[in-house]
């Protein structure tokens, strides 16, 4: 009997966890322990040599965290995953596994502000240089390639500009160059888009957002497709004995999950941004209902976008689900089930009117997060992107009067009511 290819709704509930062998518990147990006993000196040696699978220390692996890792790997149709303390930790862990001092990255300029700073400032300090390019023309990535380029980077659906990248075009450029395409898939979530199926090699998540979905818990995940040939000559760290892990050759020994093992045993083990078992468990509760929440987020966001497009106090609306959006064709191709819950718009009257809109909201929450079940609003120019110069903000797509909204799953009539009354208030000086 051939193995069944289970649907994503089933995988959200079952992937990565079977009833606990020790107790029969159906829900995933919380293994709140730092360490795990060895059966013998030989068992300990085998574990440290990676010759047998098992848990040693929860900074490296933990059975509750592993359920989340395998579940997200399954949702993304990937080979393996590594969970991290936050989305930023996932980015840093992935990038530090791929690039070292003297290497180069080509990244979309349209990024979450924290990622822009990680690439442009923090990794720069470590000797990894990033060229930022406008992703609307994928050829910009090709033009920025150098002999020492180690990866292409972009957000599937960029925050806060709400742009969509042409994944297949970027994957073709990455393939020709012999480097992996690394995509942050936080905003669509694997329910709306699976970048690995379109040719990406590594997907990153801030699980803090839609995967967790309730604004309770930080977390990040790195997923590997398992198709990239690390033996192509550009990545000798994968094909020669590892000085960071007593001589293991990660690609030869672990094959199609060699990247994940290298990230776990070298980068995570030594830098240490591990996810706690309790947080993994909380995120798992969110993942179980991801499909039903995402459908509602998409439906509500489309209704909000239509409402804003017709509103006299609104100067512009960006939502890829609107037929007038410049990204509508890419949304139809890559996000056929819906364009997620993020949108942005301009309030007539500029930055000051935007601030008045935010202050007038009744239940829409003014905070720096996205992907909560509750509706969230923020003014990026003065918050998430304030480390950037105005010129950098413009290149990242942040207009001075722009409001970013993460549309929640409240009653749609209530969301539209709160938006309307806040827009009316924004007009009163």
């Amino acid at each position: 009997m051939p193995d069944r290819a289970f649907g994503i709704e089933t995988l959200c509930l079952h992937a990565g966890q079977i009833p606990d062998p020790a107790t029969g518990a159906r829900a995933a147990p919380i293994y709140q322990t730092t360490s795990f006993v060895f059966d013998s000196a030989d068992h300990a040696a085998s574990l440290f040599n990676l010759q047998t699978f098992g848990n040693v220390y929860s900074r490296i692996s933990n059975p509750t965290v592993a359920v989340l890792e395998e579940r997200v790997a399954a949702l993304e149709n990937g080979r393996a995953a590594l969970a991290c303390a936050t989305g930023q930790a996932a980015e840093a862990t992935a990038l530090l596994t791929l690039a070292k001092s003297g290497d180069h990255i080509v990244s979309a300029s349209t990024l979450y502000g924290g990622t822009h700073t990680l690439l442009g400032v923090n990794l720069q300090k470590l000797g990894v240089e990033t060229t930022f390019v406008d992703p609307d023309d994928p050829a910009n990535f090709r033009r920025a390639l150098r002999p020492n380029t180690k990866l292409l980077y972009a957000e599937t659906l960029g925050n806060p500009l709400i742009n969509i990248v042409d994944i297949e075009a970027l994957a073709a450029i990455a393939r020709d160059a012999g480097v992996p395409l690394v995509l942050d898939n936080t905003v669509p979530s694997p329910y709306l888009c699976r970048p690995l199926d379109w040719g990406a090699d590594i997907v990153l998540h801030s699980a803090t957002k839609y995967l967790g979905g309730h604004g309770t818990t930080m977390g990040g995940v790195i997923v590997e497709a398992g198709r990239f040939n690390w033996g192509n000559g550009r990545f000798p760290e994968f094909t020669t004995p590892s000085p960071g892990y007593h001589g293991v050759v990660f690609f030869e020994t672990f094959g199609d999950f060699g990247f994940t093992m290298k990230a776990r045993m070298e980068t995570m083990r030594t830098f240490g941004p591990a996810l706690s078992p309790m947080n993994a468990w909380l995120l798992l509760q969110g993942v179980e209902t991801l499909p039903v929440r995402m459908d509602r987020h998409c439906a509500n966001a489309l209704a909000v976008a239509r409402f804003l497009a017709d509103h006299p106090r609104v100067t512009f609306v960006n939502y890829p689900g609107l037929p007038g959006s410049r990204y509508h064709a890419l949304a139809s191709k890559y996000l056929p089930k819906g364009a997620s819950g993020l949108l942005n718009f301009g309030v007539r009257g500029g930055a000051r009117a935007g601030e008045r809109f935010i202050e007038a909201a009744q239940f829409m929450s003014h905070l720096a997060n996205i992907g909560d079940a509750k509706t969230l609003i923020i003014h990026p120019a003065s918050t998430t992107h304030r480390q950037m110069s105005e010129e950098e903000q413009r290149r990242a797509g942040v207009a001075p009067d722009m409001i970013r909204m993460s549309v929640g799953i409240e009653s749609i009539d209530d969301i539209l009511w709160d938006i309307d009354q806040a827009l009316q208030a924004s007009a009163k000086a």
Partner: protein
Amino acid sequence: MDDINTLRRILGENRVIAVVGLSADWHRPSYFAAKYMQEHGYRIVPVNPRYAGQPLLGEPCYASLRDIPTPVGIVDVFRKTEDVLPIAEDAIAIGAKVLWQQIGVKNRAAQDRALAAGLDAVMDRCVKIEHGRLFGGLNWVGVNTRVVSARRPRGLAY
């Protein structure tokens, strides 16, 4: 023949694994796989002319499959794809039950020959990774095992 039920049956029915091309070097994949299977209750029979007559993983090493004096279940092949056909013939000759070609080893003629002789045949998979995937362990390093089940495992494989 590499669906989950078939692989579970193969790894459940057979307890003796002849490892063709086993290295004595601890960080080679063949050593990793053999040591793991030994720790999980399988008897390993090393096959490598380089170490014939010497003990490897505590077991005597033989120059070829035909030199092994006891029955063999799985013939696990860590050799180049083009070298596998005679190994398949040897596996059939000694009455082995399974021809297992490791990741990257993909000799279709050898696979077909083994199947025609009534053996089970697995190609381009690692015996250690499949054991960890289907009986527990591989899930602890975040690998997508593709196992979906509401049945409690009856024994601990690790």
